[in-house]
């Protein structure tokens, strides 16, 4: 079972190591982890996709919550949300097959961002299913390299996974 966790963390040195270390130490599997700063530069958001049964996910969440740098954690899997990842894919493209590749790129609303004599770089965004499908469609041409960002996610509608925190020493 894959779950998507949206985690607000203090933008302090070592916070990524702490989170990643927790996963390896307790034997949890990270599917993907994407991190970047939020609208508040002192706070970063991590989107973590984790695979495991219910008990493991519960432990992951509780253990993450114990980290002092973790301000707030939400499992947004079951909330309506927009989930996206970005892929760059370098694919073999002899001049004879370029037209076919460009058709596939169009269907997936992806873009060609670089071209060399025998290869192309394609940029695509979307949910994991779409990215996987594009990758599969391009496989017959020969994939040279794939880079994926991992999922980032945001709740639909006006709701936010806000900064409000209930920790000690806030508002003191």
């Amino acid at each position, binding site marked *: 079972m894959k779950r998507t966790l949206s985690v607000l963390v203090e933008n302090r040195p*070592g916070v990524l190591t702490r989170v990643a270390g927790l996963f390896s130490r307790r034997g949890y599997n990270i599917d993907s982890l994407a991190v970047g700063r939020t609208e508040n530069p002192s706070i970063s958001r991590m989107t973590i996709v984790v695979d495991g049964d219910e*008990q493991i996910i519960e*432990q992951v969440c509780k253990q993450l919550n114990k980290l002092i740098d973790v301000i707030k954690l939400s499992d947004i899997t079951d909330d309506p949300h927009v989930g996206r990842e970005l892929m760059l894919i370098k694919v073999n493209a002899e001049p004879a097959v370029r037209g076919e590749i460009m058709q596939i790129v169009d269907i997936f609303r992806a873009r060609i961002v670089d071209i060399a004599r025998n290869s192309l770089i394609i940029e695509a965004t979307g949910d994991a299913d779409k990215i996987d499908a594009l990758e599969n469609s391009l496989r017959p041409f020969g994939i040279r390299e794939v880079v994926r960002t991992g999922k980032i996610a945001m709740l639909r509608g006006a709701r936010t996974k806000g900064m409000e925190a209930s920790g*000690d020493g806030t508002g003191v």
Partner: protein
Amino acid sequence: METKKLTGSEIIIKALQAEGVDTVFGIPGGAVLPLYHELAVASIRHILTRHEQAAAHAAEGYARASGKPGVCIATSGPGATNLVTGIANAYMDSIPIIAITGQVGLAMIGRDSFQEADITGITMPVTKANYLVKSIRDLAATIHEAFYVATTGRPGPVLIDIPKDITTQRAAFHYPPRLRLPGYRSRVEPHALQVAQAAAAIQAAEKPLLFIGGGVITSGAHEEVRQLAEEQDIPVIMSMMGKGAFPETHPLFAGMVGMHGTAAANYAVCETDLIIGVGVRFDDRVTGKIEAFAPRAKIIHIDIDAAEIGKVVPAHIPIVADARQALQALLARLPEKRERPAWRQRIRRWQEEHPLRYDECGLKPQYVIEELYRLTRGRAIISTDVGQHQMWAVQYYPVDRPRAFLSSCGLGTMGFGVPAAMGAAVARPDETVVAITGDGSFQMNIQELATLSHYRIPVKIILLNNGYLGMVRQWQEFFFDRRYAYSELAGNPDFVKVAEAYRLPARLVAAREEVVPALQEALETDGPFLVDILIDREENVFPMVPPGGTLNKMVTGGRQE
């Protein structure tokens, strides 16, 4: 008005004083020279240990015995890495210690400088929090935060790594600085609905058991535990961490549960219909085979750490809260009196049918501990190392008050006992402090005889000497065809001579009748004392539940019950 600026070293001292620190344990070295320069003239007492590991254990012993955080100091690199075992030990047993380490200068970090080690990286998995101070402006706030985090919620060790140049820079000093911990919640109120459910479950239960652990001692909930047990007529079992949280001489006490627990406690777990776990984490040494643990029971699990709930055993009624607050809320919801004579008598029967027992011939370690109990009237603070002697100490030295039994429970660190006793004796100078150790464990921090001797710290060391890594030998006897692979300590020194070389009085005991006079002499002599007791070499710890076994399948004296 211009505030006088202080050096980083002065700020550290002032902050420690503001946090109420009266004693620190440590060893100076290059990166902490400026700090030690100030420490030498400060009102804080510094105990110079002979190995940094012992400083960490001593800080832990101090914390366990006093309830206040213990502080240890080490220099960068090897000084800091030598603390790691002690820090890990405190982490596993949730004991608040503050480790202050020197670090190479800021500009030297990351260059593999002399005596550089990434100690915040190394200790990340074994600290509740750790900090590398990168600016003198953050120093005071970091120290304050470290003490706050170490001592609140589920306590634990916190490390502060301070580069050398920061200890000589200057900054204004304001204390306490403002705490800003948006991601840290230490106070959790017991949930009223959960408490109500727990109260209903207790009233419905025919055969409830109170299972208490270290969290009871941490939160000071021993009176509430006693009240709950007595008013609701609930027998009490404990983990090793819970020793002292309920009087072991109390008629409702059924013993320690688990691998070397009492038969009564282990049988009771197999029959109980309700376990009220308070400040426990259901360690594998307690549960044995998880699927067979308390098969008929509902479980109420009270713990301040939400991550403990459901980690090992599913809790039917979880209460995430401080143990004392949760028990007070629970007591308020329960009727004043309840009798459960049948269940109480059933446990009494098990206690009578399966008491702890040993063969009285020869020089038995159990006899030594029984005599120690008698001579100290059960009022000593006992610190143990790890192994057979530790289990005998648990079994034969009943403890009736919290913070009087100190042992490395979760990590199982040989070498803990003597330095922890040292810390306890410094924290509680009015008490008799006894370190019960074995010849294997003792040699893992034997250099601390120098510290005991230097400061005349009155620790009485009872060395149960069998010339083996005894617990290893016992496992080899039971599970590895009696092939005693490297568990015999053939090169042991004459421990009495070693003690005397450190100017510590010591006695050798080779016969049963010498035990009492030697213990008396140790207890009556001022200052530290070593009693080296040559116990029966192949004595085993019973009962024993084989690892991963079911609690009611105990081996007792070589027989399967």
